[in-house]
């Protein structure tokens, strides 16, 4: 019976959102360590990267949420809670948009790399319902980052996006990904990464406004180049990734 009370105490305000698993500080620490190890050991465990992000984001996530709150577009996103899912996207319409627009290029990116926005993990270990949305939004916007930065979903492309996201969000998971991701790259790719891609990603990350403050769903018709300029992302270097 003691265990029952213990568990109820632990769950405090109980499930804050569907899929929420309340955790004690000790469990979060163990999860952070375990997921970090497992993510490096088995790179196919994307769920571990997600768990790492959730258990280490306790400082970065409130920061991001505040940035959104103090920006008109970000504030609207927090209010309206848009979700990027295949069921909410009108793929046919986006495909029909002119080349070079955000919508057209986003769909092209999804098809070329054979990815779908629906494979993002829902948050489990974030103990605040609004912050859970913030991390969910960050995950769902990730593919749009690829589109805006012009990076494919291979290892090199992912690392570049992680550098950008690390600067932008300050999430420890992005920092770790940016630092450890290159471990599995060849020497040639490392060179391109170090000399061209990372410096550009850092410059763009610093210069750009907060990427979570853009209501992407209302800008499908906007040309990618125009959106880049508006946000402050510099044009990608002319290298093959």
């Amino acid at each position, binding site marked *: 019976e003691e*265990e029952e009370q213990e568990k109820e105490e632990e769950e405090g305000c109980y499930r804050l959102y569907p899929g929420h*698993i309340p955790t004690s500080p*000790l469990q979060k620490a*163990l*999860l952070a360590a375990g*997921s970090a190890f*497992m993510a490096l050991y088995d790179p196919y465990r994307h769920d571990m990267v997600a768990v790492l992000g959730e258990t280490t984001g306790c400082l970065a996530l409130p920061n991001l949420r505040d940035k959104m709150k103090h920006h008109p577009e970000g504030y609207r996103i927090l209010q309206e809670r848009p979700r990027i899912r295949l069921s909410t996207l009108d793929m046919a319409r986006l495909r029909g948009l002119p080349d070079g627009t955000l919508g057209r290029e986003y769909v092209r990116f999804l098809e070329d790399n054979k990815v779908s926005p629906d494979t993002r993990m829902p948050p489990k270990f974030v103990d605040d319902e609004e912050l859970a949305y913030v991390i969910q939004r960050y995950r769902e916007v990730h593919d749009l980052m690829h589109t805006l930065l012009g990076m494919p979903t291979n290892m090199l492309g992912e690392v570049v996006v992680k550098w950008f996201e690390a600067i932008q969000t300050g999430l420890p998971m992005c920092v770790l990904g940016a630092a450890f991701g290159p471990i599995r790259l060849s020497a040639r790719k490392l060179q391109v990464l170090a000399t061209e891609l990372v410096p550009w990603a850092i410059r763009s990350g610093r210069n750009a406004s907060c990427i979570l403050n853009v209501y992407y769903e209302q800008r499908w018709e906007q040309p990618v180049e125009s959106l880049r300029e508006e946000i402050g992302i510099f044009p990608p270097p002319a290298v093959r990734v």
Partner: protein
Amino acid sequence: ETHFGFQTVTEAERREKIYQVFESVAKKYDVMNDSMTLGIHRVWKDILVHKMNPSPGTLLLDVAGGTGDIAFRFINYVRSVRERQLQRKLKHHQNLSWQEISESYQEDKSKSLGDSQVVVCDINKEMLKVGKQKAQNLGYSEGLSWVLGNAEELPFDDDMFDVYTIAFGIRNVTRIDLALQEAYRVLKPGGRFLCLEFSHVSNPLLSRLYDLYSFQVIPVLGEVIAGDWKSYQYLVESIRRFPPQEELKAMIEDAGFFKVDYQNLNSGIVAIHSGFKL
């Protein structure tokens, strides 16, 4: 109404949920067992089979035998007993001719288990699938059968088996009384019932450490290794819901077994209950 871990559910819901838990964990079952118990579960299972001390010719029914751990140990044990039997036989027959000796090899080769057999019965298709695959990888085929069945309603006739085992399975049965009655029914007169299961730790200090480890570490291991927090949360909760040693002993006696006794392993973290059909 019954329980699923710390939740209250109907019997039908409980059966469904438990089926889903094992369907989900089947592929990582063995890895998780090693991680959670730091490999000690292997020692517990070895002790169970040593306690059973099967001789060649024994017919074993291993219920909730899923991935085959008990079945494989039974086969290994019986094989080594058989080998020693044969060695002893050879020692006494050193005056035989070469021809006679090689003929006896042929005969014995086909009976390396000495007619012993183990039937692995499990309610969950995924667990059986993993078990069959494991048997193939490890080279177990002789004397081994796999049957899909429910411990509460076994697909076997009365008085069939010499030994009935259920290792870390009876906790997941919804009507333990029915499972025990079925165990009694399918055992031959003189047959033995053996149950290996998590039980209650009475030592207060150890109990607190055990609880801390169970509730803080095990679900995390489940998430990191198997990507499944909830199944392992269920596991640690179900252990606390399960009857303690004396209560289980009484239930086994109620089913008609005699000479019912239990042996605590690791201060009661695990217990082996034993009974005979006389």
